[in-house]
């Protein structure tokens, strides 16, 4: 099984710990992983802004980087969904792309993790992973309950997972939405944080660093003590930084 790791552009630049944790998690599970060095971005920022054509260069590069792999694994539901729908969709026999949590759950079928996280944790359900990739049952659908990221977190020792009031409401990041609809975006983020605060959460986690970057931006500006961590960091046994 040849696995290529795709790290979203902003994670590569600003959140290397999330990427390192993703890589190490896969390695610990016995997978041989490579990180093709020529990678940049999936092109989603351009495409979601209505300029899919300007993301085509990035898409071509993506196809070239990962054509020799059986699987592409990416620690972001949003980028995975974009690549699945717009980059790899018309490729027959090409690589299959998986978001990290679904790869661990569905392909590697991980049953145990060697990690402990003695903190009170709120899981943010990022929308593209949730409703696009079906990482969990969205609250709108009347289908049996399942939750892949939560299933993995429950394997972590000493973790204290909370129930949120609105368990899968969007945080308001939405890519360039965060900038072009700044007021609504910020209001949505604050409401999400409030929900976590009311449950006494110490760390907000999720399978998409972009949502966490938005929430972290608000938390740090408002000088709140809640931290954000990518789910891979918790699953890989990291502790919150101070």
């Amino acid at each position, binding site marked *: 099984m040849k696995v290529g790791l795709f790290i979203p552009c902003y994670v590569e*630049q600003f959140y290397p710990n999330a990427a390192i944790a993703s890589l190490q998690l896969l390695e610990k599970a016995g997978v041989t992983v490579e*990180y093709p*060095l020529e990678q*940049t971005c999936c092109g989603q920022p351009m495409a979601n802004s*209505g300029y899919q054509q300007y993301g085509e260069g990035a898409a071509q590069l993506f196809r070239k980087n990962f054509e020799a792999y059986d699987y592409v694994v990416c620690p972001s539901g949003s980028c995975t969904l974009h690549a699945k729908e717009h980059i790899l969709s018309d490729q027959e026999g090409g690589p299959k792309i998986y978001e990290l949590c679904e790869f661990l759950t569905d392909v590697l079928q991980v049953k145990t993790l060697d990690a402990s996280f003695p903190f009170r944790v709120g899981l943010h359900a990022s929308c593209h992973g949730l409703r696009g990739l079906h990482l969990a049952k969205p609250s709108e*659908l009347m289908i049996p309950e399942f939750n892949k990221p939560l299933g993995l977190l429950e394997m972590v020792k000493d973790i204290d997972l909370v129930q949120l009031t609105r368990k899968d409401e969007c945080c308001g990041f939405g890519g360039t939405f965060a900038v*072009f609809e700044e007021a609504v975006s910020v*209001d949505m983020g604050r409401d999400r944080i409030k929900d976590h605060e009311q449950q006494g959460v110490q760390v907000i986690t999720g399978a998409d660093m972009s949502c966490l970057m938005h929430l972290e931006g608000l938390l740090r500006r408002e000088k709140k003590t809640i931290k954000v961590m990518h789910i891979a960091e918790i699953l890989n046994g990291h502790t919150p930084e101070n």
Partner: protein
Amino acid sequence: MKLPQTHADAAAEFLKDTDRSHWHDDTLWHVRSKRDASAQKIPEWEQLRTLASQIKDHVLSNLDTLLLQFEKNAQANGIEVLWAKDAQEHNEHVLRILEENQVKQLVKSKSILTEECGLNHFLEDKGYDVVDTDLGERIIQFNKQVPSHIVMPAIHLKKKEIGDIFHKHLGTEAGSDDPQYLTEAARQHLRQKFIQAHAAITGVNFGIAETGGFVVCTNEGNADMGTHLADIHIACMGIEKLIPRAADLGVFLRLLARSATGQSITNYNSHFHRPRKDKKMYLILVDNGRTKQLGREDFRNSLKCIRCGACMNTCPIYRRSSGFSYNSTVPGPIGSILSPGMDLKKHSTLPFASTLCGSCSDVCPVKINIHEQLYKWRQVITKEGPSQPSKKWAMRFGGNVMSKPKLFDLMGKMARKSLSISPRGFVYNSFNAWGKHRELPEVPKESFKDWYKKNRNK
């Protein structure tokens, strides 16, 4: 006050009153929660959604023949059927019917189609007093507003404000906001209007091709009060509101009320088949852009909409920006995929008023892929809509950087470097919308690629 032009500006304006915006969000979230609880009780909910979507697929694929079948059967029942290619033709039909029958007083139950056609203003300009009889619609009619929600038109108003409006227009006690007292006042007021009316206008929720009959759903029974008392019934129907058979109706009635308000069924689902003896019934079938939308492959199934409003109640942006911020007859997610088809320039910011979270598509009882259509409208708008040179330049520049790994690495390094050495005031300037209320991420000591080269790729 100058009206805000973009959805973002209008939303920012709405959010300034945090008490109201939080109240608005909570109120609509409560409706969404009621919908969940109600849908949860139906084991075959997802099957119903699929079935409804498939029936509507069939309707849209056979709209031409089904419409003719519907017309033929309706005419055979004694209904006079009229066709309107656009809003103006629709309004002129209504006016002609009123004139021919020498109607002076008329009542109207809720119809988003007549809002879309601007019927009230058109008739008021001709000297008619159009009385909206849905309680919410009557409130906003007093307040000279348009509906901010398609199911709950006055949802933007608080009890106290409604008390003030009724005090002014119906002479209720000043300061009273007791719902029962106010509703009773509205009831007495509307009774007079019902009794005086010569004609009643209704919308149509479902037209049934097989029978030539149609169904109007209201919670207040106001459509029935109007049509039973008046000599003339004018029903205004968008051509997409068709279903093939009476047997299909159950699928939609079970979905409609549960999706809209969480009720198991709408209080009054009234079936109209033919005029009563010596009375008249007219049915106006309106296109007004629908066949154009039908011709757009990517957007045609927006016409499946049964106007339940669930996508509005679930939309985190709608709940925090209110219906008026969309400046279109149908607001919210479904409005944002319907309205650009009517006027691309006017509604060009609506498909961007979304994080593409997809909640609208999952809540939709007829499974319209709303968020995917929002994405597709964005692609159309950047090509055919108003030009945005700076955004376009930024996206082209970004795309270029992302297609060249060496340039990307260099730009990344420069960005991290400049962020770490620049004075705060330089980074958090007035052009930095991100930084208005949010910190930028802290700059790490190295990128992942640098780490990987050192630790794995020796």
